[in-house]
């Protein structure tokens, strides 16, 4: 057998331990130059600042005032991402040399001209070229800050350790254990967690129920003025949320707000009804009630639009067949309409729950998490996300604890969503999951 007269595959892979050499060996000079240049740039960058940056990430500095721990961490993290990107390139380089070498072993033609190489890159690499900008942007806009938060959660960064005057140090899992075992922290954390869950389920379920009911009621054949109501119901979504929330905040003012000054007196004109003015902003229970109602108002149009779309796509034949079988309207709703709606919109509804879990704007803009205080900077209507904001921006910032709480809630949200996504088979048609 003359199969292995040549062994370009092994030689090329071995040579590409220094990127570019393998490609030169494969007679692809253009590729070789590019690869080697990239390698050279990274090597020089590494020698000049890279190693120092990575070292800084490990030590976080040793001399207060000279070393700024936070900057060191940021630079180190950026360098880490850069190194991982280079690692990807490095593996790609070896794989490439290997693949081309194998082609040569089999005596197949390979592209040695620059133009052919570029053409091949366009043909084969098209999906990568198109997605590359998104990946790079996400690496620096999402991955990088999330990594920094992850790191901060394991340090003692707080108001007593503000760089550059003080150094920040790695302290392991102390922040996490404090949240769960230090009684003062735990009390606040548990209170906020319970309200966050009540808020998420209350507000989201209200907006879903309202959206579905509005869509189903309006979809009945005999209803007149459909397009009028459809446009009207879209308004809370169309108006930017911050404007509505600030407007509501003013209207729910205890003494002069429109709800207490105008709406309640108006309702009291009805016979047998006598509602006193309600302390929307100073009684925690009422603030919570108001928040959930307002979110129902803000969020239902999204569900309404989606469900309307689903209803329009259900064929009339189904209902006609059900009519022939003598099914009542309620039965039809339960066994045709509702399953269809839930099947088509489940993933979006799940994202509504995660959205409200992290719905900072409404909590902060309506009453700044107040009234009152339940310790550690938190007000009685603060949810986890607005508590984190206060921990970070308050009088005595607790950056590290805030970062730890962020990680905990991210883990909860991701775990719960992934499980429900799988359970509801939300992406059933997509072969990947």
């Amino acid at each position, binding site marked *: 057998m003359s199969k292995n007269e040549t062994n370009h595959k092994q030689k090329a892979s071995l040579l590409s331990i220094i990127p570019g050499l393998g490609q030169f060996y494969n007679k692809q000079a253009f590729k070789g130059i590019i690869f080697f240049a990239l390698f050279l740039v990274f090597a020089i960058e590494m020698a000049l600042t890279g190693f120092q940056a990575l070292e800084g990430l490990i030590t976080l500095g040793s001399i207060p005032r000279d070393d700024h721990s936070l900057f060191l961490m940021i630079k180190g993290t950026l360098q880490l991402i850069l190194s991982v990107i280079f690692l990807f390139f490095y593996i790609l380089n070896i794989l490439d040399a290997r693949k081309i070498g194998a082609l040569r072993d089999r005596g197949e033609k390979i592209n040695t001209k620059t133009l052919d190489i570029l053409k091949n890159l366009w043909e084969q690499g098209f999906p990568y070229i198109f997605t590359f900008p998104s990946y790079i942007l996400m690496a620096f806009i999402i991955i990088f800050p999330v990594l920094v938060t992850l790191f901060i959660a394991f340090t003692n960064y707080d108001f007593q350790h503000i760089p550059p005057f003080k150094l920040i140090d790695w302290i392991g899992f102390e922040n996490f254990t404090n949240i769960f075992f230090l009684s003062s922290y735990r009390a606040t954390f548990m209170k906020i967690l319970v309200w966050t869950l009540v808020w998420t389920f209350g507000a989201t379920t209200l907006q879903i129920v309202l959206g579905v009911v509005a869509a189903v*009621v309006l979809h009945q054949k005999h209803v007149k003025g459909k397009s009028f109501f459809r446009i009207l119901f879209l308004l809370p979504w169309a108006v930017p949320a911050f404007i509505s929330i600030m407007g509501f905040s*003013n209207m729910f003012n205890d003494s002069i707000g429109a709800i207490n000054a105008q709406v309640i007196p108006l309702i009291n004109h009805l016979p047998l009804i006598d509602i006193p003015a309600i302390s929307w902003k100073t009684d925690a229970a009422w603030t919570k009630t108001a928040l959930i109602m307002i979110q129902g108002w803000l969020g239902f149009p999204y569900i309404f639009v989606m469900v309307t779309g689903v209803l329009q796509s259900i064929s009339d034949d189904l209902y006609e067949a059900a009519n022939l079988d003598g099914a009542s309207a309620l039965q039809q709703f339960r066994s045709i309409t509702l399953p269809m709606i839930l099947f088509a919109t489940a993933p979006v509804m799940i994202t509504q729950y995660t959205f409200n879990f992290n719905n*900072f704007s409404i909590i902060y803009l309506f009453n700044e998490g107040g009234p009152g205080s339940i310790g550690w900077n938190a007000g009685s209507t603060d949810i986890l996300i607005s508590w984190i904001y206060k921990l970070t921006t308050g009088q005595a910032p607790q950056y590290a604890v805030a970062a730890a709480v962020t990680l905990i809630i991210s883990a909860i949200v991701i775990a719960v969503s992934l499980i429900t996504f799988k359970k509801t088979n939300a992406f059933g048609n997509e072969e990947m999951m």
Partner: protein
Amino acid sequence: MSMKASRLINRILTYGFLGILSIIIIYPLLVTASSAFQATNMAAFTLKLDANWGLDNFQRLFSETNYLSWYKNTIIIAVAVMIVQVTLVTLSGYVFSRYRFVGRKYSLIFFLVIQMVPTMAALTAYYVLATVLGAIDSYWLLSLIYIGGGIPMNVWLMKGYFDTIPREFDESARIDGAGHLRIFVQINLPLVRPMLAVQALWAFMTPFNDFLLSKFLLRSNELLTLAVGLQTLISNPREQKVALFAAGAVLAALPIVVLFFFLQKNFVSGLTSGGSKG
């Protein structure tokens, strides 16, 4: 119960529900909007019929606050975010829908997971990064953060929409010798126009709806966006600028609402096909 009676009850319940819901929707908006045109110096919004109507608030808004700068800033960021984000999302969504390549599966899962991480998780890092890069009070970093944050979820929606477009067109074009780019630009792009419109509107609305990041990264009053700027007017009722807030809110909401209604037909198809059927 006779047929007629039950039908009557259904009508009463239906229109009763629709009527009450309409009032609940309209009232708060009307209260805020009408306050914009009333005599100034109020501390709380009210709906009155016998008010002194006028445009004083708008005049004060333009002369006493940086409202026009806020408006201009928001539009600049909105347009930048819209152009870049829609481009990136469309390119990626198309590739994820049409091509099978190494890393596709994990990328899609990654996109799904990463969009659940709250912005808050990144706040400290953004702030320090902005300080290091001197990007406090400038728009490029803020815009990039909006774009990066919008990519994951919208790539999913865009991919879902591309999935609904039959591939037969691609095949026949390929047989005719069309390359990647021509199949994308000439065949697929025109077919996703409704979704492009929806994506453009959502991207455009990002700076209008964001409060958190802009509050963190913008400091000088004349450089604020509408959300943060308007909040300075209403955060302290004693300053008696709530009527100015109302006037500013009307002007800020109006173009968005108009765009919304022009594009509303596209929402239904964009949401139901993109969000669900995968």
